[in-house]
């Protein structure tokens, strides 16, 4: 069964990759399996400088999901390039860097930092992190700002740019059109939905940051709907994500219109989830009458 998918800048042997922020920089999960098995790896968000992130608690469990407010903790783009990317060279797997920032200038600076390395194949432009006060969510919920940052980053980058959309918007198609018109090579969707959990004992939000991003199977129906709507409106490569746990979930995303998928929260429950999904994918595709991954993309329309 042919699982390969070809996307701007990315020749994927299969469509399954770990989602940004749920896989660190790959080292830890490489204790569980060889990263060669993965379609690609999306690494943790990079900002210009090292970031401490938010206070703890940073995560909370919810029904079929979780909230997180890490706050983009990372060692900074230069450190990532120097200290983290070399390890990933041990594997034959394309790397996608997740670019974050608080200002357009910061986004551009981070983008340029990755210009100087061949260790990444594409950028995922994170304009949708709901857990940082400055920038983050604003860029992801205002189409004009989103278009502006996309345009600047695309101009500055010598890698293809996938813009990661926030689901916390009234009009996801409008957002998608804005960033595609501004030059995005592809879309990555969805990031987390802003949520909150109350801690009854302390009578306060459980997460120190108060709100956190909701991920996991709970949000899958929203991800599927948004990808379906964007696929109806636009012919653009989409990396789909939000609640994927099984190979059937992957097929659901492909049918809705995703060209490839990322798996986030599920890694925490099962560190082997990505290779297990990849292993099951051929028989799942076959069971539902498909001869390749390519064959299934968008077939739910």
């Amino acid at each position, binding site marked *: 069964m042919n699982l390969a998918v070809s996307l701007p800048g990315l020749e994927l042997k299969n469509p399954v990759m770990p989602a940004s922020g749920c896989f660190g920089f790959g080292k830890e999960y490489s204790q569980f399996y060889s990263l060669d098995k993965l379609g690609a790896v999306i690494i943790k968000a990079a900002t210009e400088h090292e970031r401490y992130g938010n206070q703890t608690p940073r995560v909370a*469990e919810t029904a079929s999901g979780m909230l*997180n407010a890490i706050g983009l903790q990372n060692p900074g783009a230069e450190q990532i390039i120097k200290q983290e990317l070399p390890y990933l060279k041990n594997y034959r797997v394309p790397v996608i860097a997740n670019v974050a920032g608080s200002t357009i200038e910061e986004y551009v600076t981070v983008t340029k930092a990755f210009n100087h390395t061949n260790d990444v194949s594409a950028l995922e432009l994170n304009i949708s992190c709901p857990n940082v006060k400055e920038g983050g969510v604003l860029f992801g919920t205002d189409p004009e700002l989103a278009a502006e940052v996309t345009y600047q980053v695309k101009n500055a980058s010598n890698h293809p740019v996938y813009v990661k959309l926030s689901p916390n918007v009234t009009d996801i198609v409008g957002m998608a059109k804005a960033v595609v018109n501004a030059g995005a090579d592809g879309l990555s969707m969805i990031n987390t939905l802003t949520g909150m959990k109350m801690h009854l004992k302390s009578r306060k939000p459980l997460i120190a940051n108060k709100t956190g991003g909701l991920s996991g199977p709970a949000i899958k129906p929203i991800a599927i709907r948004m990808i379906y709507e964007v696929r109806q409106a636009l012919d653009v490569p989409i990396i789909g994500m939000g609640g994927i746990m099984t190979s059937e979930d992957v097929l659901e995303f492909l049918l809705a219109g995703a060209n490839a998928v990322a798996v986030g929260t599920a890694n925490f429950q099962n560190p082997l989830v990505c290779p297990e999904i990849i292993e099951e994918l051929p028989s799942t595709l076959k069971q539902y009458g498909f001869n390749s991954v390519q064959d299934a993309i968008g077939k739910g329309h």
Partner: protein
Amino acid sequence: MINKQALKVLSIKNIAYQTYEMVLKSDTELNLKPGQFIHIAVKGFMLRRPISIADVNEIDRSFTVIFKIFGDGTEALSNYHVGAEVDALMPLGTSYPIESLNIKQALLVGGGIGIPPLYYLGKKLKEKGVEVTSVLGYQSKEHVFYEDKFRELGETFVTTDDGSYGHSGFVTDVIRDSNLSFETYFSCGPTPMLQAVTSLLKDENGYISLEERMGCGVGTCYACVIPLKNNPNKSKKICKDGPVFDANEVLLG
């Protein structure tokens, strides 16, 4: 090497108020050190639950965990029966230094569900010929567990918050009042207790073990960080760089 195991429940016993002792058997050789933990997936819950290793039986490849019902996940775990499978990532985290320390006398200071990992530590210290003194704090009489087992390791003081058993008050009261002699202390328990213990013993050599809400449990998600004392803009991960830290290394709450 960390891996994902399907452990079998050999026994499960209610040993104190809402407190369970569960013995788990592995198929492979165990290499569990005092202070390390396992990360348990309970069916129906999104996130795993970190639980410390309380004792190890290398011969039959079984080990003990002790947990208290805190919320829905630990409640579900308390309903596991003998023979049931427990899905765990293990072994996780750092351990208390035993090999590298050259000491004669150790003080163990534990509170509530921070007590279990200290038992395995105490056993290992005693094996090495270290004299062990334990100060154990519980909420009340009905919460007390493993008192006899700690007494087998050495002198043991028990305190309860409400005075219903042993000394009344906090572990720090006992440490202050009793003239204990030790070279290094090892402490595990709720953060307020650790704060009290580390500030009372600030001039002593010590190790503490921390808790935090976790995502991955292996170091990928940055959920469980703790700032460093000498540079609060830097942090370490409790799941990977901890849970055991030098008492002066991290900034508590």
